[in-house]
């Protein structure tokens, strides 16, 4: 349906363009004056008045059609006294029957009625969708065609419209941020209405159990996120222990020692490491590293679990290496050559120059890179989901199973997503924490790097 309407819109804008062009030529000939702008601008003017209203109709239909139809169907549904309905399942059933009449066998009469109601509503909606698109395009063209007079400055108007479009494009980023903040805070507030914020931040029991049936007497869920934060921190520390030495030393070697040829081959190879999807690292951690860590733990007498902070952290460290190395490489390269030459000139060798002059000079930039890497490590999801486990252990032992913020978000939202219980909502509270922390790290890191750049430029 929406494909053909796109074709319809395309035909509409094409003909409106042609119309606008011939119309203005005709009008200026009639009045015997030259038009103020080139005919194309008048054509574009008509086109825009045709296109944008149609797009608005198109998108509002695409977004709201299904919901409105469903609401009407549900509100007209003949509920049987006493029976219990799950609205989502009911709707799915109605849709199934409507889309596929062979499913109707054995379904109750209410459902079949509702399904036919649903189909008829869809048909009405489709017809009215096409008519309203055509009408709105005609109206737009009509309005625009009244302005098609030679003394009208079409070009100015068009350029102003283009400005509006460009401003809209740039504000998408702002809308995205607002959307993120709004959705996280809104759902988190619902979560904190049921679970106290102090329990969430300071209690050490994470047991997101929710009684399935009303009146079940088993334990209430408890939502103390400390073990989760601790697990996140542990994995992050392991990752940084791998990534910082390897990444930094690689960067130093590439920036200061390596020949041009080595640089030219190694840098793209490291970029491959950065471009590999994180789920691939997850697979790697699960298949190769985790069994290795387990065997290693057993050989030194530690009982390692099959999924551990160490395995996830190590692989995450490898993922971050190119990140640290390329950022540090940039930073080291932007240390002015004069510092290097001065140090070498008074007789220091290369290693001494690097350790005593370049690294101290580059330190703020490198710290900034580390902070960015930490924020990457905290927000990383797939490696930990596959390799770190889901048990909220409050432990400092990297051979044990730990869980992280991102893992708990995934766990809470996989499967059945009912937005009326704290278990699902906890994902948004955790997401809010994650967002705030990474944003904070990021702002600091960018500030540091910016100051550092200013110092040497």
């Amino acid at each position, binding site marked *: 349906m929406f494909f053909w309407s796109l074709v319809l819109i395309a035909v509409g804008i094409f003909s409106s363009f042609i119309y606008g062009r011939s119309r203005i030529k005709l009008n200026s000939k009639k009045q015997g004056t030259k038009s103020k702008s080139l005919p194309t601008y008048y054509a574009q003017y008509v086109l825009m008045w045709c296109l944008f209203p149609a797009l608005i109709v198109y998108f509002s239909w695409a977004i709201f059609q299904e919901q409105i139809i469903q609401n009407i169907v549900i509100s007209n549904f003949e509920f049987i006294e006493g029976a219990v309905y799950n609205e989502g399942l009911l709707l799915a059933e109605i849709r199934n029957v409507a889309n596929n009449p062979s499913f109707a066998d054995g379904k109750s009469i209410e459902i079949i009625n509702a399904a036919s109601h649903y189909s008829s509503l869809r048909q009405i909606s489709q017809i009215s969708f096409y008519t309203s698109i055509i009408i709105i395009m005609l109206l737009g063209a009509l309005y625009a065609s009244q302005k098609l007079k030679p003394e009208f400055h079409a070009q100015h108007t068009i350029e102003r419209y283009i400005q509006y479009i460009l401003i809209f494009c740039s504000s998408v980023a702002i809308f995205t941020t607002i959307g993120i903040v709004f959705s996280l805070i809104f759902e988190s507030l619902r979560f904190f209405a049921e679970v106290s914020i102090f329990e969430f931040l300071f209690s050490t029991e994470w047991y997101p159990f929710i009684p399935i049936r009303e009146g079940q007497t088993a334990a209430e869920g408890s939502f103390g996120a400390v073990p989760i934060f601790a697990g996140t921190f542990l994995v992050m520390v392991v990752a940084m222990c791998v990534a910082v030495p390897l990444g930094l030393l690689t960067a130093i070697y590439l920036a200061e020692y390596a020949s041009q040829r080595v640089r030219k081959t190694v840098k793209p190879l490291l970029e491959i490491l950065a471009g590999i999807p994180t789920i691939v690292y997850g697979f790697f951690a699960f298949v190769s590293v985790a069994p290795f860590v387990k065997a290693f733990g057993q050989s030194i007498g530690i009982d390692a679990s099959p999924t551990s902070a160490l395995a996830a952290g190590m692989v995450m460290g490898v993922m971050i290496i190119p990140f640290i190395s390329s950022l540090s490489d940039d930073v080291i390269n932007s240390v002015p050559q004069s510092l290097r030459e001065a140090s070498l000139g008074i007789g220091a060798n290369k290693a001494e120059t690097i350790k005593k002059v370049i690294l101290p000079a580059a330190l703020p930039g490198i710290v900034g890179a580390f902070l960015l890497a930490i924020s990457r490590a905290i927000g990383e999801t797939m490696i930990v989901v596959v390799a770190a486990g889901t048990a909220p252990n409050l432990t400092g032992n990297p051979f044990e199973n730990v869980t992280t913020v991102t893992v708990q978000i995934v766990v809470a*939202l996989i499967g059945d997503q009912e937005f009326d219980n704290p278990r699902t909502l906890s994902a948004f509270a955790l997401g809010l924490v994650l967002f705030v922390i990474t944003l904070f790290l990021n702002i600091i890191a960018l500030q540091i790097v910016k100051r550092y750049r200013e110092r040497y430029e």
Partner: protein
Amino acid sequence: MNNSVAKEKIVSLRKKRSLEDMRFKYYGFTAMCLSLAVLVFLLYTIFSKGYTAFQKTIVLLEVDYNQDVLKLTPDSSEEEMEKGKFFRVKKQAIENFFPDLSKSDIKLVKKLFSINADNEIKDYFLDNPEVINTKQQIWVTAHSDVDQLLKGNSRRDVPEDRRKLNDIQLSYVDQLVEENRVKQVFNNFFFTKADSRHPEIAGVAGSFMGSLFTLFTVFILSFPIAIGASVYLEEFAPKNRITELIEVNISNLAAVPSIVFGLLGLGVLLNVFGLPRSTPLVGGSVLALMTLPTIIIACRASLKAVPPSIKEGALAVGATKTQAVFHHVVPLALPGTLTGTIIGLAQALGETAPLIMIGMIAFIPNIPTGLTEPSAALPVQIYLWVESAERGFQEKSAAAIMVILIFLFMMNAIAVFLRNRFERKW
């Protein structure tokens, strides 16, 4: 005397220092080699685990297309043929193949064949209806457990209760191997079928199409918006607070964890706007928002690379600013913006977490045909297979990783090609 002692000291100190220098250099070298070694090891792991998935095991069966067993006649219509009792034919073929099987053994032997074997027997018949009432030698797909055993992925020396195939089944498999009734051929199912509960007939076609639709959505949404935003910020935006806010916003958005974008998609696109769950439309929208900052940054860089003299030249001959930008600057920057977009798309292709959030993790056994149909995506498919307990899925996940890596490699190659071919040095 004193002089020579001092000299010696200096020499030894210099030796020590140059040794230190060497050592430091080697630390760096080792670190670099280690990082590269991990890359090689990673690729090796994927290849060694995954290459077997491109082959499947098939077993030769002698099938008797007896019309009474099939409940068909030589002049049945196509529709009737569709409903023929092919499972009975298969059962008979197995019984004939291993005469004197007890009832319980028949069950065990049946488990050596794929669930799809009935369909293969049927398809063969539908293609050649003249074989009715004849005996045909047909290769049918073996069960994943047999497949894994013969590929050496599961071992036979573990105790019986921890094996998928028990001793009796093993002996039948051995018999089949001995009689040369088993062979390994190219696994076409892997490329033509969608996900399945049965590893031997699970493929990446469904998730591949899902990823394509998702990327299409990402491209349609992010490319025009990114160009618009970067043109505005680079060429038109006044230097004021709001512009600065937008710029800071974009650079911070680039570092927001991808899973948070998933939460945005769930909280706003699904719950507020009520877009259909698990569809490439929603997945693509979320990924488009996620990759937008990356693409905008790349587009701005390529707009910046166009020398100002071009724009000034256009302005000098009387073009308005809009004309100068859209007729001269943007076309020159286009290859660069395309390169940036492709790199952004490559990033979107590998992203898993946001898609899980918006429900593209559901089990979808058919190949999607549109943007608003529930579908899987390649990275999520890999995740599902990695998490699966079935042995046969492990090689599939590695093979799917190979597919995604090749896909990524091609996208990057196109980006590099575009850059080298069309980008002008000024």
